[in-house]
């Protein structure tokens, strides 16, 4: 077992331990500064580990890294399997979480009880990284629960605000039902396939290969896959807030702590998109039992339709919002719609080079949208938290007090609209390319309609915060750590555009080695290799 593999295995236990030791530590230490430093250090370590994992993945020619918990052989024990896709997204998500923790060190002065805050936020990171790295559908359920429960807690964090309680109650109530359904999906999968390991499921659903540990099949895998996929998609479209499962987002955003909102839109919802991509392309790809009866094509078509609907609904609702974060919630919904529009171009009649363009656009847009959103949220957070207001009308002209926030908002608006030298443009360019070359011109028109409507929504933030004159005098808070965060992110979104030729080549390699047939083969290959180690080269 090499270093990279141990690191993959260590990252979630480390985060979970760190999270649960916060309440214990609180018996001895009450200093806010200590917890700020502690949580920041833990997330920095997680970021370093995720980067190491990804670097060793690239150095090893994108050969998936497998970690076996307790040394058990794969289908029997839980494994983490990191290929190019989840290695990359794990790095991205831990970066976003690190920024959220950095932001929290500034934001903690508005929070009375940092102990539960950091317990829950570290729990959220555990869930996110666990969901992304896991190679086991049942462990995915466990990590989903970790993620969800931390998320409910964080949504309800400001218990004195009725809006927060209402949002968290609705979110938790429906979320609990939903995660149970995912549990049922895993039960169905296990009853038919006799395995919960992702690579093993891939082997049985697509490659028709059996192994000595989980045997061959135990039931009708075709109908079991249908039911399991139906439930799974429903659950993860809820997590990633696709219309019509998007209702929790604006409510939760409007009342949660600001760094948490950054973590939600940058990392949590992306996790849902990742899981759907993993199920639709790795576990049940174009050659699987799911594709035989046309179910895969039909649900991809449904996801495409819902993606368009989500983009339209999100951007239309943006126009009429008054709460800054509610508006950003709808903007997230609209971007998630765009992500699903490209994610679902994997129908059997779409040529594979078009699919590759689409998936490259997906990954690149995740990065562009996520970083743009985090930039936007931290810039608005600086203004709104200092003023203690979330209503855009009451924030009028306030960013004139904070020049860095004005710059941050401007850059973020340009990035999210997709103006030309910014990264957001290049991912949208690839999206157009994918839609047009798949022959569906109408999707390109839909994309420009969504972009046009949502640019009106972003202009609203611009208009509210930057242009109006400041009427009252406010006490200016110090920018502190937000100064480097905002300036670094503002430079980053510009660099994402200027260096996009190199970045796109890189992301193309990531897609080629994960979601495309070659990558799927490698995903199974690593698993088979580990198995051969147990059965003596058989």
């Amino acid at each position, binding site marked *: 077992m090499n270093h990279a593999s141990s690191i993959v295995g260590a990252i979630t236990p480390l985060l979970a331990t760190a999270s649960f030791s916060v309440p214990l530590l609180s018996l001895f230490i009450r200093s806010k500064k200590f917890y700020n430093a502690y949580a920041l250090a833990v997330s920095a370590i997680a970021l370093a580990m995720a980067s190491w994992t990804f670097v060793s993945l690239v150095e090893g020619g994108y050969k998936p890294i497998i970690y076996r918990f307790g040394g058990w052989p794969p289908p029997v024990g839980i494994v983490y399997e990191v290929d190019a896709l989840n290695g990359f997204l794990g790095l991205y998500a831990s970066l976003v979480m690190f920024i959220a923790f950095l932001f929290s060190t500034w934001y903690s002065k508005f929070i009375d009880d940092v102990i539960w805050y950091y317990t829950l936020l570290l729990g959220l990171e555990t869930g996110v990284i666990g969901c992304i790295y896991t190679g086991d559908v049942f462990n995915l359920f466990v990590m989903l629960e970790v993620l969800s429960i931390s998320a409910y807690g964080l949504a309800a964090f400001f218990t004195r605000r009725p809006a927060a309680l209402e949002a968290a109650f609705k979110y938790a109530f429906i979320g609990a039902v939903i995660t149970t359904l995912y549990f049922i999906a895993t039960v169905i999968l296990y009853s038919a396939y006799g395995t919960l390991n992702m690579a093993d499921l891939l082997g049985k659903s697509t490659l028709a290969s059996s192994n000595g540990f989980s045997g061959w099949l135990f039931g009708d895998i075709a109908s079991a896959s249908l039911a399991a996929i139906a439930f799974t998609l429903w659950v993860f479209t809820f997590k990633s807030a696709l219309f019509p499962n998007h209702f929790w987002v604006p409510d939760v955003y409007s009342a949660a702590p600001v760094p948490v909102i950054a973590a939600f839109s940058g990392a949590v919802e992306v996790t849902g998109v990742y899981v759907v991509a993993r199920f639709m392309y790795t576990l049940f790809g174009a050659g699987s039992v799911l594709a035989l009866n046309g179910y895969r094509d039909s649900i991809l078509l449904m996801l495409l339709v819902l993606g368009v609907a989500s983009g339209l609904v999100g951007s239309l609702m943006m126009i009429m919002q008054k709460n800054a974060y509610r508006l950003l919630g709808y903007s997230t919904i609209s971007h998630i719609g765009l992500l699903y529009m490209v994610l679902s171009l994997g129908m059997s009649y779409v040529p594979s080079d078009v699919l590759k363009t689409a998936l490259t656009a997906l990954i690149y847009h995740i990065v562009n949208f996520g970083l743009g959103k985090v930039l936007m949220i931290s810039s608005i957070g600086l203004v709104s938290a200092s003023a203690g207001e979330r209503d855009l009308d009451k924030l009028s002209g306030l960013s004139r007090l904070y020049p860095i926030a004005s710059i941050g908002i401007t850059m973020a608006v340009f990035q999210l609209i997709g103006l030309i030298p910014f990264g957001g443009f290049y991912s949208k*360019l690839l999206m*157009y390319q994918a839609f047009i070359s798949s022959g569906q011109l109408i999707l390109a028109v839909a994309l420009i309609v969504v972009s046009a409507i949502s640019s009106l929504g972003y202009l609203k933030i611009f208009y509210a915060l930057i242009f109006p004159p400041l009427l009252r005098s406010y006490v200016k808070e110090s920018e502190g750590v937000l100064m480097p965060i905002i300036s670094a992110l503002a430079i980053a979104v510009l660099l994402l555009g200027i260096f996009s030729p190199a970045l796109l080549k890189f992301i193309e390699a990531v897609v080629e080695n994960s979601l495309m047939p070659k990558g799927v083969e490698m995903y199974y290959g690593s698993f088979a290799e580990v198995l051969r180690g147990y059965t003596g080269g058989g």
Partner: protein
Amino acid sequence: MILELIVSALVFPGVLFISALSFFTEWYLRKSVAHMQSRMGPTYVGPIGLLQPFMDFVKLLVVKEEVKQKHSIIWLAELFGVLGISAIVSSLLLLPLSPIRIAADYDFLIYVYLLGVMVPIAMVAMSLCMSNPFVSAGASRLLSMILIVEPAFFAGMLTPISIATHISSSTPVFCEEAYCRSPPYSIFYSSITIGSAWSNFVYAAALITALAAVIVSVQAKAMLNPFNIPEAEQELIAGIKTEFSGPLLAIFNLLHNVELSSSILFIIYVFLGGPYPFRHLSIQGVLVLVAKYITILTLVAVVRALFGRFRVEQGVWILIKYSLIPAIAAVAMASLFNLYV
């Protein structure tokens, strides 16, 4: 190469040429509308008032001082205005007209983002730098029109480009080391091949529909009658232009006129194949180009003279009916024909 680039950017078809063209466009519009309404139109400067728009511009830019309003951010407004103008000028590099031409797969999308997104945002942001209720009302009206107009313009322009891509995929035009292909959705290559599509009556139907939709949307983009809703004189004072004065007004007017004339240029190339059926550097080619420009401009002028201003909701509805829906129908028709023709 560098010299050619500088010439393309600053002289032809860059800043100087497109500004001159826009002054001519403004003069022609004013003169022809005045003629239709039995008025004189511009007469003071130059033969038959030809230089009047230019002198207006110079006067505003160099002589008049802008009124400094209490809450405005003038430098930001200027920056946005100039950004809009340079976005248009840079997009001209995609045309076959320019000495340095850039062609790439899907460069049409670059054009759309420059002209359809960057310019309206620059225009709106420029006006919003001035704090005034009339400006905000005008900007709000402009934005609700942009909501319809930009998708319509995009869909309308997509129609000829997709048809041209389909045609040229069977006859490659660009060769690179014994490997021939035709870059898809490129403005340059589309304008070379689109002329031949008009002879096919099925394609011609789609093209005519799209052309009509695009002309309506250009009318609205340029805020000409009946869509001069955002600057609605008498109703909103001057709408988005209320607080502009001096150099700022000059920049705004130039941006507005340059946008109109470059849109017409792109329509000529993308729909009508530029100097088709002649070549660029021939006398007939230049004449055909000028004739096409004047024809489209006259159409715009006729529409402007025929109608009075619509109310906002009326205007939006008319735009949906006569621009967005036909444009989307034309795209749908084009993609259907591409499958079966």
